[in-house]
């Protein structure tokens, strides 16, 4: 198994240096903790985990704090990935920074451009930390120019959530949920025709439909090796596959098989639709599994039994992308605090921690040996839903497309895509035109960002 994974890792497209700078020169002072004068060293971590995930993170942190006397970690919930990033950016100017910060996947190029972190790879090297047990695809996502910038912590990917009871009622096999776009469509058709639910499928207008479905088809999202060979300068999604994806979504809504429940940003209407019987399927992040079980089990929705399945999508030589967030260590912290941060991060990546984390949240356990953990084994045996994201991550080809795009103005590009989807689905714009306009606007954003960075 290890040999196969090693071979896959080697076959990844080699990445060149990004022009943004000499991040490789930054060192990680892993020994500073031993020499620290005032122990325990107190550090602060900024995170944006909600509900059940926050509880689990707090539990792990409490365990860490109790287990040793060198480091005490305080958690600060900065509400959302975006708020955290904003606060971080402001902190770069004012000095108000944490010692560990959880930043979402899409901000990778941004974090590189900020030149403000100690690359985790430096700590790995200095500490001779063995990363062979960590899922390689996760490490590869956060590696650009042979440098691992952030330590993957909560990895998730989109999965299909569906109401088993509705499936049964409509005469669909609750153990055989759809796997392709055609199957998704015909299942929706059956649900609507039998009058089981108003619509078959609820679309949370997430920009990552385009991202993941292109990856599943084996297509890159931006140029220059998906932004990993060199800084990306243009998007590449305005192609046949992109048009098929947009057209499929448009067709589903036009034919009243799916309902558009609006852009993300705290929106759980796609799940509420299932709860209210207005839909029976939706795609959402596996990281929300814990919260979803909480919400849909809150007593407001009696007719729902949630099933989880791999994300249906176009067929091709690809797979889902690595998604989620990673932990970064800001350079601004003192050496002791950087070392303390590294120690905390190592704890969070231990097999038992990852097992607990996965069981409590639905995030993918990032240590292969976590699968041997009895709690995890029992949890997965009892609720196999939690295993779906993990399998999905490991199955699938490793290529440029599935390595995932690295884009500076990722947020801006995502907003453009969401707006294009909105325009197509609610204002009657034709899919081809919507996609092209999305590509044009995205390219404008990328150009202007690159101008602001490159100088």
């Amino acid at each position: 198994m290890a040999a196969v994974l090693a071979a896959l890792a080697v076959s990844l497209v080699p990445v060149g240096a990004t022009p943004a700078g000499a991040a490789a020169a930054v060192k990680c002072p892993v020994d500073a903790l031993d020499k620290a004068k005032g122990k325990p060293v107190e550090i602060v971590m900024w995170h944006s985990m909600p509900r059940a995930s926050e509880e689990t993170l707090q539990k792990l942190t409490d365990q860490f704090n109790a287990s040793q006397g060198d480091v005490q970690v305080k958690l600060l919930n900065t509400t959302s990935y975006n708020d955290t990033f904003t606060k971080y950016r402001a902190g770069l100017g004012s000095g108000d920074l944490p010692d560990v910060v959880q930043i979402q996947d899409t901000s990778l190029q941004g974090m590189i451009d900020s030149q403000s972190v100690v690359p985790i790879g430096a700590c790995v090297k200095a500490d001779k930390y063995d990363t062979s047990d960590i899922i390689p695809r996760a490490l590869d996502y956060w590696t650009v120019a042979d440098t691992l910038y952030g330590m993957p912590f909560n990895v998730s990917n989109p999965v299909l959530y569906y109401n088993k009871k509705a499936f049964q009622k409509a005469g669909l096999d609750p153990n055989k949920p759809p796997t392709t776009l055609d199957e998704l469509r015909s299942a929706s058709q059956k649900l609507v025709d039998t009058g089981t639910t108003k619509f078959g499928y609820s679309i949370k207008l997430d920009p990552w439909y385009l991202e993941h479905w292109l990856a599943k088809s084996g297509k890159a999202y931006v140029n220059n090796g998906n932004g990993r060979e060199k800084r990306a300068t243009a998007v590449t999604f305005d192609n046949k596959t992109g048009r098929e994806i947009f057209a499929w979504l448009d067709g589903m809504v036009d034919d009243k098989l799916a309902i558009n429940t609006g852009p993300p940003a705290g929106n759980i209407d796609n799940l509420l639709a299932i709860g209210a019987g207005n839909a029976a399927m939706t795609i959402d992040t596996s990281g929300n599994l814990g919260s979803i079980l909480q919400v849909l089990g809150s007593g407001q929705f009696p007719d729902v039994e949630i099933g989880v399945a791999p994300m249906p999508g176009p067929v091709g030589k690809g797979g889902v992308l690595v998604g989620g967030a990673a932990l970064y260590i800001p350079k601004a912290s003192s050496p002791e605090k950087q070392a303390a941060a590294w120690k905390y991060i190592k704890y969070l990546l231990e097999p038992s921690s990852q097992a607990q984390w996965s069981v409590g949240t639905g995030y993918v356990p990032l240590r292969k040996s976590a699968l041997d953990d009895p709690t995890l084994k029992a949890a997965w045996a009892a609720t196999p839903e939690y295993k779906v994201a993990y399998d999905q991550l490991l199955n699938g080809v490793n290529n440029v497309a599935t390595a995932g795009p690295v884009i500076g103005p990722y947020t801006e590009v995502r907003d453009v895509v969401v707006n294009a989807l909105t325009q197509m689905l609610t204002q009657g714009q034709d899919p081809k035109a919507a996609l092209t306009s999305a590509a044009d606007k995205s390219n404008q954003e990328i150009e202007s960002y690159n101008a602001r960075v490159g100088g």
Partner: protein
Amino acid sequence: MTVRAPSRRAKDALLGYALVLPSLLLFGVFVIYPFVKNFWLALHRTPPFPGLPQKYVGLDQVGDVLSSSEFQKSLRITVLFVLYTVPTGIVLGLLLAVLAHRQMKGSGVYRTIFSSTVATSVAAASVIFFTLLNPQVGLLTYWLGRSGEIGVLDDPKTALVAVSVVTIWQNLGLSFILMSAGLQGVPDDLYEAAAVDGANARQRFWHVTLPMLSPTIFFAAVVGSIMAFQAFGQIDILTQGGPNDSTNVLVYSIYRDVFRFGNDGVAAVKAIALFVIVLILTVVQLRFAERRVTYAR
């Protein structure tokens, strides 16, 4: 006397400065400095992160922003929002004020009810309507017959109207209070004189009430417009500028530029544009007030 007076005048002057100083300092830091900084920001391209170099680009950025479709759409949306909310608010406030103005049994209760929305904050009103308009579980959605369909706030065709309705509702109390106060100021003998001349209720309204109320209405229109141009809270809670930027009013656009995209330069250009608009409205208000005061005399 001549020995004491100058030192007392000097002490008074010093005291004067001292009393004014704290305010001036705060103004300097929180009003004047940031106002001036906007111009500097507008002329420099902001890097995505502090620490990277700021590049002087002269008026290029200003030109880019002002000619961008995003800014123009935002301006258009904001003007639409003002047009939706201000006249409607005034008319409704006036209607309620006229109805409740008469001393009838129970009119006090009605007056309290009509002013009640002044006790709701923008955030409270927005959270209430956000929940009531939720496409899956919202009560208003159910009554509008749109249960399970695309949400009112998710549809670019209806989102701005919905946000406007929430705003109008929340402002109703204030509008009512303003118009009522204005009505109080209309002398009764004017009505009596009109009645003696044979004017009926409708004529009295158009020829006595409305003209006498016009300063109040004008004030409400200008101040209301200024406040509407500065709207933010309801957009942040209801739609976050979407869907497809259909509720992306100016202040929200500025907020997004700074806190979502880290682009202070672009935000500064928009902020200056907002300032100019509000300035024009304020000057209009002052000019009219001047003229009206002389007319009333």
